[in-house]
């Protein structure tokens, strides 16, 4: 049809004449009514097909992004959170088992091994999903490299400890330092990268398909104009072909707006009530794990490591963790702390109840921690130890309770997320194909409608 004739170097002679000829024919055609009708018919058909194509393309993009949220980025972000958590848990458990010495309970040993196995499995999986060039891949490579170093150090610590050598404690502290300085920051970076990707996929899925909406409005406008022109020239109100085309385009446009708005609402819901609380809860869980690890290491290190201010480094780190979790030692978490945020993000009793219980358990934990510290500080290590690693009434019991409740809350939010995200993805089902079919139908209608008018000139 109308071909761009500007720009470009002069064409060779033969083609120039062909060009000129076509253009002349078009100009000549536009001066007669049948010629004009042909041009209008072709333009309408092109607009409608274009509208269908742009809609199908943009919707498919958003559906793919919504799919990526559900199938790829959220599971990857959840895996990264599991890697992060299982590493922190392994470190905490290793220190706890170390304190029990030769009588390390079987369950503790198994928990450590389960953590390491889970982390290695997830890291193998993550290594397959990423490559060295992207930032997540680099963190995964670093973790894969450092994890065996860490477990080796823990085993050396254990072997020395079993022989009654204080060197074991020094090894454990070194292992824990590696965990805190190398592994956990890498796991955290991986988690943040994957969570960032999740946010990116959310944005992609939620962005309005402006191009499709604009072409739709232009197509409907053109159809309206063509019908008005038809009415003014022939005094006939309806042209069936053009009417069909208008109906088709209207349906596609309304479907597009409704389905996208619906999907967007569901996805936003899955983010607000799923992904966001999941992030806060994951962070709270890892912070509580580290605080527990600090508590254990305070007893392992026995004053061997100090801060610049001369305080015990591990006790200081424990207090910092507690501050991030709940703020002060009052029963109610301070504003902006992790558990306060988790509480305000939680919805429904299924979400709120475990967080409330976790908050209670943290409070109990802090009180028992103070008792254990007081005993150790007064030289009663024998009394402090069962207060920390004992089965009943120990800080360990309340830490376990915190961990269990946060795990429950995470499971609840994971469910919430899954439902909303599935709904959001479902809302776009069939829209791309439907838009294509209806647009083609509309284009056919427009061509037939104009063809009917043209036949009147034969």
């Amino acid at each position: 049809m109308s071909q761009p004739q500007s720009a470009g170097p002069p064409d060779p002679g033969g083609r120039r004449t062909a060009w000129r000829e076509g253009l002349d024919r078009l100009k000549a055609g536009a001066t007669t009514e049948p010629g004009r009708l042909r041009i209008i018919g072709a333009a309408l058909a092109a607009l409608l097909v274009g509208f269908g194509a742009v809609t199908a393309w943009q919707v498919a993009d958003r559906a793919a992004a919504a799919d990526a949220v559900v199938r790829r980025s959220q599971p990857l972000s959840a895996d990264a959170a599991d890697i992060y958590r299982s590493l922190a848990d392994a470190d905490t458990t290793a220190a706890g088992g170390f304190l029990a010495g030769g009588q390390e309970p079987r369950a503790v040993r198994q928990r450590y091994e389960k953590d390491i196995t889970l982390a290695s499995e997830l890291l193998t999986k993550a290594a397959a999903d990423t490559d060295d060039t992207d930032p997540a891949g680099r963190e995964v490579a670093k973790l894969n490299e450092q994890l065996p170093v860490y477990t080796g150090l823990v085993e050396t610590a254990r072997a020395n400890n079993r022989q009654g050598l204080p060197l074991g404690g020094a090894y454990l502290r070194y292992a824990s330092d590696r965990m805190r300085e190398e592994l956990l920051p890498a796991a955290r970076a991986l988690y943040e990268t994957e969570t960032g990707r999740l946010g990116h996929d959310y944005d992609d899925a939620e962005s309005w398909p402006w191009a499709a909406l604009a072409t739709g409005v232009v197509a409907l406008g053109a159809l309206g104009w063509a019908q008005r022109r038809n009415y003014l020239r022939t005094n006939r109100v309806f042209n069936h072909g053009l009417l069909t085309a208008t109906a088709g385009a209207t349906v596609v446009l309304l479907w597009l707006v409704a389905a996208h708005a619906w999907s967007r609402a569901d996805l936003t819901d899955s983010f607000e009530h799923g992904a966001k609380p999941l992030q806060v809860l994951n962070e709270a869980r890892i912070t509580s794990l580290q605080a527990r690890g600090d508590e254990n290491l305070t007893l392992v290190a026995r004053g061997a490591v100090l801060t610049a201010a001369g305080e015990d480094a591990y006790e200081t780190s424990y207090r910092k963790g507690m501050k991030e979790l709940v703020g002060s030692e009052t029963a109610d978490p301070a504003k902006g702390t992790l558990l306060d945020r988790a509480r305000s993000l939680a919805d429904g009793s299924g979400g709120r109840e475990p967080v409330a219980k976790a908050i209670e358990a943290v409070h109990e934990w802090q009180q028992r921690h103070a008792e254990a510290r007081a005993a150790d500080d007064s030289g009663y290590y024998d009394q402090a130890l069962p207060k920390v690693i004992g089965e009943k009434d120990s800080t360990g019991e309340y830490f376990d309770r915190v961990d269990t409740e946060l795990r429950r809350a995470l499971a609840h939010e994971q469910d919430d997320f899954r439902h909303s995200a599935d709904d959001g993805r479902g809302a776009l089902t069939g829209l791309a194909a439907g838009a294509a079919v209806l647009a083609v139908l509309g284009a056919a209608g427009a061509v037939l409608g104009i063809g009917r008018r043209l036949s009147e000139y034969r």
Partner: protein
Amino acid sequence: MRRRMRGSAVAGAAAAAVCALTVAVAVAVPPAGGTTGHPAVRPAARADAVAADCTDPEAGLRPQTVDGPAVQRIKDRGRLIAGVDQNSYRWGYRDPASRELNGFDIDLVHAIAKALLGDPDKVSFLAIPTNQRIPAVQKGKVDIIVRTMTISCDRIKQVAFSTAYFETGQQLLAPKGSPITAYDDSLRGKAVCAAKGSTAEGQLKKDSHGASVLTVPNQLDCLVRLQLGQVDAVLTDSALAAGQAAQDPSVRLVGKPFTTESYGVAMNLKDEDLVRRVNAVLEDYRRGGDGSPWMTAYRKWLAADLKGITAPPEPKYRD
């Protein structure tokens, strides 16, 4: 004895300064258990003279067994509060299996508790980190510190020491078969580990013999780094190095100790009666030749890795 005869006028002035301080306190707080008698009125000297003219920080106060306010305080409490290390193998460490504190320092604390309270187990052991030893004594958090603590001119301004109960010196620890032979040029291009803030770190800062230096929070961390191949040698005092060698049969002490340092029991400057009492305990602890409690403890904890000691260090007195 020998040392006192040799004592110069300078040392006399230094001692006088310390005495003046303790006397001042003794006058302010009358002893509960009668007179201490011994340190009579002496000419006062300026306190900073101690530091400026310190030549013999090991010289301590003569033994005395009369109860003063500090001893009485411990007796009233019924427990001795001792600051110790829990991480120094063979000196003060907690056995992971028995969870009991053990070691040469710990045995000495038990002996002091027995002398003061009649029961070696009437002790509360507090784990005191290296850099908290002096504040813990000054704040009265502990009665005594028995924690491989070197007697030095700087420290005698801040705390009172017993007579020396162990003699040691800076020495290198290296793997068997290492080309490092002593604290000399064989260190060139090697990596040496020292605890942060230790005498060894200061020594390496002064002269590292071309070695690079890695500092870690605790001397035992050095053995970890040595085993992992991150450093080639460890510099610490021979007593602690022996504790490290005892945990790893593949490392050994190399060269000779190239400084001389003595460990003392640290107490508050005000607790003069306690200082004298502990010195009396140490006299008994050293007495008895080869069968003395000191030699028994030496053989039990240290002889395997710190060979060649035949007798405890001779006490020196300044009054």
